[in-house]
């Protein structure tokens, strides 16, 4: 009897404590440690960005921010964990561009609408990278070669239906080529694709400039054009596709989001704190070191960008036959 009474008492106390937390959460958020879900593996780019944000956010908010990697299913596992967490501001996540693509592939039911956007922090543009000893000196040479030999060249950079696949598909569409004029070879990521590029297994990689930077510096890979709105300050001589008369930009981005239904006051607190983080010298220096581009969008702009990207990506993926 006494044991049962004790258990009952314990449960009541716990429930009161939990209730107390929920009630107090919106007003004086944050009170306890925050979990930041990273949908990609430890050691990768998204992991690095989420960790530096977590470290700096801890200083701003005064509570620990713990990065938890939930990897797998091409990002589906982590994004699902973000979307299905309790919307109390104590679990947030770093969604990546894949959130606007995975559901078109039929990998998950989760879309950007299952998340409350907080802000976008980073954007890296796709580029057209070839071997240094390849026979094309300029972008135009490559384009002419593809026109003369459709379906012969092979491109890679990520898995089937991944962001660099989309970059290629959109570029081909903008030029007026058929989606099959370059063969897409799925790979586990940019690093293995670039190795295959050097080994002669593929002819180009439409991965981002920071991903190819080490090999560009080593003189083994050379970029022909970047799919960005304007030139990259690190590669001032590299033309954008726009300058070459092709209306196509594409890149991978990273942001911060909370589960759907997170109170607006909490989102505002997070947005303000992360804006400070992104504008801090430490963050700027870190991103420059890694070659990542800083790109700030607040909650409203991020929400609009997500909706637009989701629509655009869906169209291109359908046109290229990537969507299911």
């Amino acid at each position, binding site marked *: 009897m006494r044991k049962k009474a004790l258990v009952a008492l314990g449960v009541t106390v716990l429930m009161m404590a939990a209730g107390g937390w929920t009630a107090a959460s919106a007003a004086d958020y944050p009170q306890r440690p925050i979990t930041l879900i990273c949908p990609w593996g*430890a050691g990768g780019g998204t992991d690095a960005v989420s960790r530096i944000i977590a470290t700096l956010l801890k200083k701003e908010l005064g509570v620990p921010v713990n990065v938890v990697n939930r*990897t797998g299913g*091409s990002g589906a596992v982590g994004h699902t964990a973000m979307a299905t967490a309790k919307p109390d501001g104590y679990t947030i996540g770093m969604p990546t561009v894949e959130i606007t693509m995975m559901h078109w592939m039929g990998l998950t039911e989760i879309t950007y609408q299952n998340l409350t956007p907080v802000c976008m922090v980073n954007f890296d543009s796709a580029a057209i990278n070839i071997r240094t000893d390849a026979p094309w000196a300029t972008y135009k040479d490559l384009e002419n070669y593809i026109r003369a030999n459709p379906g012969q060249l092979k491109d890679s950079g990520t*898995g*089937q239906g991944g962001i660099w696949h989309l970059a290629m598909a959109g570029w081909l569409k903008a030029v007026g080529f058929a989606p099959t004029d370059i063969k897409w*070879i799925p790979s586990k990521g940019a690093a293995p694709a*670039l190795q295959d590029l050097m080994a002669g297994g593929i002819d180009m990689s439409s991965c981002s400039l920071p991903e190819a930077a080490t090999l560009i510096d080593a003189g083994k890979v050379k970029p022909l054009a970047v799919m960005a709105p304007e030139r990259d300050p690190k590669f001032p001589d590299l033309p954008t596709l726009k300058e070459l008369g092709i209306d196509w930009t594409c890149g991978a981005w990273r942001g911060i989001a909370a589960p759907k239904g997170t109170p607006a006051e909490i989102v505002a607190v997070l947005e303000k704190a992360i804006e400070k983080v992104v504008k801090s010298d430490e963050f700027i220096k870190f991103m420059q070191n890694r070659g990542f581009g800083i790109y700030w969008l607040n909650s409203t702009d991020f929400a609009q960008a997500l909706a637009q990207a989701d629509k655009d990506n869906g169209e291109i993926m359908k046109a290229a036959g990537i969507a299911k």
Partner: protein
Amino acid sequence: MEHILTAVSLIAQPYVLMIICISALYGLFVGAIPGLTATMATALLVPVTFFMDPVPALAAIVTMEAMAIFAGDIPGALVRIPGTPSSAAYVDESYALTQKGRAGFVLGVDVTVAAIGGMMGAVILIALAPMLAEIAMRFTSFEYFWLACIGLSCSVLVTKGSLLKGLISLLIGLFMTTVGVDITLGYPRFTFGITDFLNGFTFIPAMIGMFGVSEVMRNVTGDGCQCNVGAVQTQKLFNGIGPVLRKYRLNVARSGLVGTFVGILPGAGADIGAWIAYALSKKFSKEPEKYGTGHIEGIVDAGTANNAGLGGAWVPALVFGIPGDSITAIVIGVLFMKGLRPGPMIFQRTPEILYAVYIAFIFANLILIPFGVLAIKTGSQMLRVPRNMLMPAILMFCIVGAFAINNTTFDVGVMLACGILAYIMESNDIPVAPAILGIVLGRLLEESFMVSMIKSDWDLTVFFHRPVSAVLGVITVILWSSPVIAAWRGRRRVAEQVATEEAVCEPKIKELT
């Protein structure tokens, strides 16, 4: 040169050195406890390395394995039970010498030749890996397909006992890698709509289960050994070792080479290296009749070879991402976790980490002697640690470790299921090693095949178009037909082979360590 200096500065830090010392003690302890293998020790170490930078994490594994493989000799000499399967080849020999009252001498020789063998393996690793990496830079999906085939075939061919059971084990491993999102086409397979299954079976929890939980189950269900041993006479541990080393210096050189190259072969690790070195030792000895009666020559050979194999196993692991033994199979998982993709690119992108691994190898083998002496002195105490406290602790570490990788209980389930699976397999004499290779290489095999087919529009002859690819293909075909050829080539040859295979496939080996 610059990279070497960076690497030295990465290792020579109080924190890293402390990690090395702790993992040395851990390795000695695990190695000296019969039933706990170096592979299991590595699997349990992974969740801890999760919180470290790549250099201390890899240095910890390197040090730990060197210590554990040597420490396996201690219970072998003292109570005639090998601490790890790698010491099984010469356990009778060591024990015979102990009965003559020369336990101190045997262990002194063991620790010395272990350090020399380990050093030889490290030197070959340092010399060979960058050379192979240069070649591997030119490898594309066609070559990797054949490499995966060779790795998987070797793991079955070197296995103990029946070829068929090895093949079954391999297929179990390969099947496990088909769960999850198909890497080339992005199609979810065998997921039953459950999000956790999308990623397939996570590799590290599977390994922790197969080596940790199954080991615990075996220990709990088998007869516990209550070891009562006296202390070793360690006053003049290194007395009389100089003459032994001088006399058998050619044996040491030969076994160092044999051990390293067996280590390089995918699937064959330190234990098989020790068996082969011991068999060769007896074959080429001037006094083969003394073997088995407490003759130090075989111990010198096998003791050198098992430690040499450790460095060798890292060669294919670093260069191709194909594990040389089951420890490096786990190392590959650790590398991926740290964002370091094993393969020729690692030599370009992070050379300082590779140099740090090399230095860690040399350093570990240098400190093997003082730490080894310490272990010899406390060996009899370590054997008295009660099983009923050790096993629950290991099980607890398995669970915590499996959870820590992805912070999900799903992985704990995977770990336990794999543990039970491995236990059932071993109870039926199905070796676990081919399954492990299957889990590690299954995705590489599938991906390289599919990617090659997409590149060539399903033209199978493309696997023989590039010269390197064609050579690797021919080697694979020869490997596949070797059991048939062996059976076809007269009885005498077969009889000889069976004899060596029997020596290699001692039933005490539970897995490749």
